[in-house]
């Protein structure tokens, strides 16, 4: 019996020891971003200046979280693992319909956003009509500029992806760009700002890929709050973004791939709702 006793004591003390080792939760603001450009420890580290900026403006510690896909970001707002999040257009309308999230701010460019259609520089594709019979890459299935709007324009151009193309979802905009650059697919569609920053940072070779079509403008990304977050904190969060100024907060603005922020509202997304419903994505 004594031996058993000792085993139990050993178990409990080891349990407590490991408890300290695996760490405790802190009371922090949880801020999430859709993985439009990757979801790793590295990409979170790269966004350290944004985290520091938000901590300073909110006066509270911030956890910056990038879930692996768009769906998980929305569900995290639903179950309370995230307080604020950066969503794409389609994910916003879904998050709003499911969990009544509050739209706060967006880049002024998000109101006039475009998707780029790219192909390899020596390919025979020069228009949407040339895509017939080719292989194609979309980004995440829930991405507005990487799936919904390109899909719509392809259909309008008479090239319904379901009938005329073989396509797949790469999961992110950079992956689409790379799949086109390497020749794994003939063409792809992606977010214009991701394309530009990949070229600027040397992550994509401008000699190997070219843009063959730019979509019509649409409304895209937005920062939202979970509806239970108190209004004062919501206001502070929105203010932090509208306070960003070119020339002064360059580092943070580069991470956000924008120039300035404006207030967002739910009505902007009326057209997107109709489009998404028509394409059976909403």
């Amino acid at each position, binding site marked *: 019996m004594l031996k058993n006793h000792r085993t139990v004591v050993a178990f409990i003390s080891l349990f407590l020891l490991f408890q300290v080792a695996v760490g405790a939760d802190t009371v922090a603001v949880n801020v999430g971003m859709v993985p439009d450009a990757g979801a790793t420890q590295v990409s979170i580290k790269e966004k350290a200046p944004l985290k520091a900026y938000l901590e300073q403006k909110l006066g509270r510690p911030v956890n910056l979280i990038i879930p692996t896909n768009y*769906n998980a970001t929305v569900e995290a707002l639903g179950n*309370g693992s995230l307080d604020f999040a950066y969503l794409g257009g389609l994910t916003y309308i879904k998050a709003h319909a499911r969990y009544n999230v509050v739209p706060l701010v967006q880049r002024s460019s998000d109101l006039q956003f475009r998707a780029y259609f790219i192909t390899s520089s020596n390919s025979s594709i020069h228009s949407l009509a040339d895509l017939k019979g080719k292989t194609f890459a979309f980004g995440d299935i829930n991405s507005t500029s990487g799936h919904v709007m390109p899909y719509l324009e392809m259909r309008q151009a008479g090239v319904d992806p379901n009938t005329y193309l073989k396509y797949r*979802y790469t999961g992110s905009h950079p992956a689409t760009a790379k799949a086109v650059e390497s020749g794994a697919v003939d063409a792809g569609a992606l977010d214009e700002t991701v394309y530009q920053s990949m070229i600027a940072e040397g*992550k994509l070779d401008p000699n190997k890929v070219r843009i063959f079509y730019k979509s019509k403008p649409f409304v895209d990304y937005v920062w939202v709050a979970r509806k239970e977050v108190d209004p004062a904190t919501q206001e502070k969060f929105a203010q932090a973004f509208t306070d960003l100024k070119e020339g002064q907060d360059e580092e943070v603005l580069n991470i956000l791939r924008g120039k300035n922020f404006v207030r967002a509202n739910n009505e902007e997304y009326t057209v997107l709702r109709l489009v998404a419903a028509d394409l059976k994505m909403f």
Partner: protein
Amino acid sequence: MPGLESALSLLRQFFPPDLSFSYIRAETAPLFETLEIAAGAMFLALIIGLLFSLIIGARLPGSRALYGLLTTFRSIPDLTLAILCVVLVGLGPSAGTLALTLFYSAAMGKIFADLFSSADPGAIEALHATGATRSMIAFYGLLPLRLKDLLTYGGYEFESAIRASVIVGAVGAGGIGTELVGSLNMTDYHRATTLIIMLVALIAAVDFLGFYVRRQPKLLLVLAAFGAAAAWHHWPHLMVVTQALKTFRTMVPPQLPAEAVRELPTLIGQTLLIAIGGTLMAVICALPLGVAAARNISPLFISFPVRRLLEALRAVPEIVWGLILIGIAGLGPKVGILALGLHSAGALGKLYAESLENVAAEPVMAMASTGGSTLSIAGFAVLPLAFAPMTVHTLFRFEWNMRAATIVGMIGAGAIGGALFNAQQLFFYRQMMAYVLITWAMIMITDAANVRLRKYWRVSEEL
């Protein structure tokens, strides 16, 4: 299909791996998280599985229904469960822990129950005669009788849980799998290679640890305490649980829209194609590799490197092979076939080699004494003798690959897994549940067909 040249140039981008100290240090946290998911889930699964199996072993009321439930649950692939759990409790290690707890509670419950049912009936009768209740028989009779086997199987399951905890990360359930998918999405191939190396090292370390724990069962106490702490840490919060129940209500009843029903035969066809094609490719590769790895046929300078190659092939799970290949081989079921083929070639190659090494010595000797060449001995004595066990291994592999084929589609290889993943991503949860049910039915049917096939060929399941 892109040209071989561009495929090779993409493959070259995976080298050299990023072995910088700062990167490896940054990735130790997700690696540790993977270990936590596996240990936490196994700790809970061991308790739950043991409890269930004792109920079944003691034939307490409801034990038949419970056994049926365990068999059913075991037929849902781990990654499918992980997707469900990610939807229910959100991203991160909580979902992974929950998914693996469910999967391994059922797996171990069933294995342990089978072990108990083959326990020495004499000892149980004796206990019964003393007037012991059924639960007392279970606790004082069944448990001590089978403790050693429980430890052995528990060890094997833990190794398999480590692989599974990497895989569930691919759908966002935390750990190093999540990092790997993220790196590949970011086209950060050098770092993807680093992560694959880290994962192979982790699996090797766990294999090694398993060896020690089996010899020194006391070490199990440390592992159990670590598992308990990890489970405590990662168990979903109460608020998440209430939300999960709400979300679950949006998943039932399962429903498929008309277009999806029309697609269904194609999806099932693609899944079968991946399972059959993958197994076929594995057999074609594993036959020469197995012969080359068999130490009674091939000289050491061939068998040694071939064995290491087989280890490397099977250390990388199908899903991870798929993630690498999707960038190289483009899209569609061929990615799934290649992914299953490579992993299974490693697994089957090893089993074939063992079957060839385990043939009875006498007939081979007799053949050798007639002056037959090495090749003719291999062809006319060793191979025919090893044929039966090799067939059984292949059949089991097909059963395994059927499961794998339903999940490998999730990473872009189409088939039923792809449809399931897309439905989940688009929040069409009732449609997703319909695909979960179809997946489950497909696996139940192949499992049952395989059992019949083995009976028909009168090959024992004990091999």
